[in-house]
């Protein structure tokens, strides 16, 4: 725990709880998941904190997915009306996919049928094109790699642990993909689609569950390697 005089030291990944003091004279805007009280910087979450000089970075270990513009997400169609689909993106807010995005600018509800493209229950890969505090997120599927996903199994992971699943420059995801002979489609919103042979999917799901449990440990890569070699035979 961080208390008083200890904070002058360079701290490598210290465990913090809400309300813990991170810095006693922090200048500027507070980084994500922290807040300022006078000049003091305090934590808002359970997580790990990295402090390097003036840089403070808090990695939360739990929390809902807050949409961000340009995030790649995986969602499920839950409803539609004449002009748009409602998409569940595992977040606080339901996202909207406008029909114009799919049918083009000459879309008209008389001539185009929304269900010809996406039905309720369909899973799709999409990108967030707009979101702010006052409006629900809007999605697009007009980019390469986006659109309906027809095969694979969805697996959920806490959104805050997605960076651990991807690893440095995608290293962790590559290890899992090559050892389980699967393909991972990783949404920033904490939904992962695993595609490939069923044994591979089971094993990849196990690896993802291990990340969920042990995301805070530095030896995670070794543990994943060990699991995949042991169970993969």
């Amino acid at each position: 725990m961080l208390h008083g005089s200890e904070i002058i030291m360079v701290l490598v990944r210290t465990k913090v709880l809400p309300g813990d003091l991170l810095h006693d004279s922090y200048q500027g805007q507070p980084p994500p998941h922290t807040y300022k009280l006078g000049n003091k910087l305090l934590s808002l979450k359970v997580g790990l904190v990295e402090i390097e000089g003036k840089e403070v970075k808090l990695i939360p270990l739990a929390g809902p997915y807050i949409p961000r513009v340009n995030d790649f997400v995986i969602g499920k169609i839950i409803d539609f009306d004449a002009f748009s689909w409602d998409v569940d993106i595992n977040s606080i807010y339901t996202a909207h996919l406008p029909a114009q995005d799919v049918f083009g600018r000459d879309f008209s509800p008389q001539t185009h049928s929304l269900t010809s493209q996406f039905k309720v229950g369909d899973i799709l890969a999409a990108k967030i094109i707009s979101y702010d505090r006052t409006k629900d997120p809007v999605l697009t599927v007009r980019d390469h790699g986006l659109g309906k996903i027809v095969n694979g199994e969805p697996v959920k992971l806490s959104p805050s642990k997605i960076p651990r699943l991807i690893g440095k420059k995608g290293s962790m995801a590559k290890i899992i993909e090559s050892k389980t002979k699967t393909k991972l489609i990783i949404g920033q919103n904490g939904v992962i689609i695993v595609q490939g042979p069923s044994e591979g999917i089971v094993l990849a799901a196990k690896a993802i569950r291990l990340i969920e449990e042990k995301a805070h440990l530095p030896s995670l890569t070794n543990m994943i390697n060990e699991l995949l070699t042991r169970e993969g035979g």
Partner: protein
Amino acid sequence: MGKLIDENGIRLDGRRWDELRPIKIEIGVIKNADGSAYIEFGRNKIIAAVYGPREAHPKHLALPDRAIVRCRYHMAPFSTEERKSPQPSRREIEISLVLRRAMESAIFLEEYPRSIIDVFVEVLQSDGGSRCASITAVSAALADSGISMRDLIVGCAVGKIDGQIVLDLSDHEDKEGEGDMPVAYMPNLDKIVLLQFDGIFSEEEFKKAIDLAILGNKKVYEILKRALIEKYFGTVDEK
């Protein structure tokens, strides 16, 4: 009325004036909740669950600039000595309100506009000081759900029995004693977020009671911290 403190200063359950009842906290006990916690505070056994932040339904409840909190404190029919009607009583409605107010001061509501945070507290077995135990469980559940919080909240009561200020009243001491004051506290910010009082204290006694409550709350905080660290990091550093 029998004596609540004997001549050696020992209370009926064997505690001294400044001792808490045994406390056990478990985090993440409900799989389908976004955050949950179970607390045993003396003979209190309480489960707290947090759902959300999620879209507010009915929609007119939502506020454009912040989240709203809905809290339900409920005692199971089998939680008391005689069967309690499952219908929310006056007391339960009041406790739901004070718990909500206490957590609203800790949660960073502005971070989740247009949404709602549902908090459910179910008392499985009741003893004295259940609102204090509940707020501790709720704050553990909120931390587990990853909702942004200014600080953790802990709760602990003080009271007066046989003319003496003591920490953490049990059910019997609460009923037979002369005063009861539940206090919930944010230890890092040094702020009191819930204070209720029933009985008669002199000014001096009141000041002593507040100091004692904060002392007790700091002990509860250590236990809560341990439980959270154990759940999230597996181990507790001895430091």
